[in-house]
């Protein structure tokens, strides 16, 4: 595939901070599912549907896009800081991520939506 004459790789490399292994993820593939297929243990697998927050990570570097995720787990401010749910994360370049699971947050649950 070429865009503006440059070759764009179909697969991106995902690295997890502190993990020597690198993982391969397609641009149309959710990062969590690529990691789950590789049996890595650093990122937790939960609902895989953007609702539970188990797979929360911070993208340290790289380009990406996301689809809808629960604001209980990623607020708009956090999203601007690179926090995402990896089950809603699609790479657009090689990525470096770090696990960012947060245990229960009592205050957020009380906010109206």
């Amino acid at each position, binding site marked *: 595939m070429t865009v503006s004459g440059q070759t764009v790789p179909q697969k991106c490399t995902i690295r997890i901070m502190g993990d020597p292994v690198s993982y391969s993820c397609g641009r149309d593939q959710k990062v969590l599912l690529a990691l789950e297929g590789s049996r890595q243990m650093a990122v937790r697998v939960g609902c895989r549907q953007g*609702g539970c927050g188990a797979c929360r990570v911070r993208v340290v570097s790289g380009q990406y896009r996301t689809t809808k995720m629960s604001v209980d787990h990623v607020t708009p401010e956090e999203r601007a800081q690179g926090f995402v749910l990896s089950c809603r994360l699609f790479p657009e370049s090689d990525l470096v991520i770090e696990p960012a699971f947060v245990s229960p947050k009592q205050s957020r*649950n009380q906010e109206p939506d």
Partner: protein
Amino acid sequence: MSQQGLLRPGIIQIRVLDVDEAITHYCDRVGLELVSREKDGRVYLRCFDEFHRHSVVLREADRAGLDFFAFKADCQASVEEFRKRLENYGLKVDDVASGEQPGVGARIGFMTPSGHRIEIFADMALSESENAPETKNPYIWNAEPKGMRAQRMDHCLLYGPNIDQVEKIFKECLDFTTPERVEVPDGTLGIWMTVSNKAHDIAFVRHDEPGKLHHLAFFLQDWNDIGYAADLITRYDMSRDLGPTRHGITRGQTIYFFDPSGNRNEVFAGGYTYYRDQPPRVWDHNNVGRGIFYYERKLNDAFLSVLT
């Protein structure tokens, strides 16, 4: 079994991130009927073997989880009696006007100390669907059931703090009993409660964060239908959590999976018939794994922490 007052689970209203994806999931996969889509965006669904208008309500929001769980009472006088008992206990009870949901009469509601909204109502219109269960010389169904062939919305499991207080309220104000419980060294971990002769109509597990939904369960005919549901989960690449397996608690045969917003669903078959004179069954911390997942005989991380 003589049953007066509270009858059964009647309505669950849940939040979904994308209502169209949720309709595909609950109608095409789980097999519910789309009853109506109202101006405020809420979507009303009915399982094929339910006589009344709807049982599952979807509301699009920016977070998943439970809006409320409602029980149906035998008459309005019973609803007023429950109001008195809840208020005498010290709880604040509010009113929801008749018609707030189409076809549903006046409802009362209160917040549990676990952070969940529970409602009670007496009146709901019977389904006008041509596929509603028949009452005269009935066929077992009019049109063959779709998807996983969910017969009814059966129960839910909720996670939150103060479940000792929740149990007291459900027993003292709403006539529930607790057929099964999990007791660990620092207290009660879980309670499975019923107001009927099903093994459970609602369950609670102790958890720091209030107001969480663990799962919403649909009743299937038998173990073969649980297997068929598992076939559909693989065919449509649905997010499976665990199973097919059996619960030691309730003895239900089960699969856990997730809707497209991460709300956990269960399809469930079997479960014992309960009568109030049966002594409570108690599970301890050494055996709770077998209580929850009877074949695996151990709890997994997701059961205790993956919630919406």
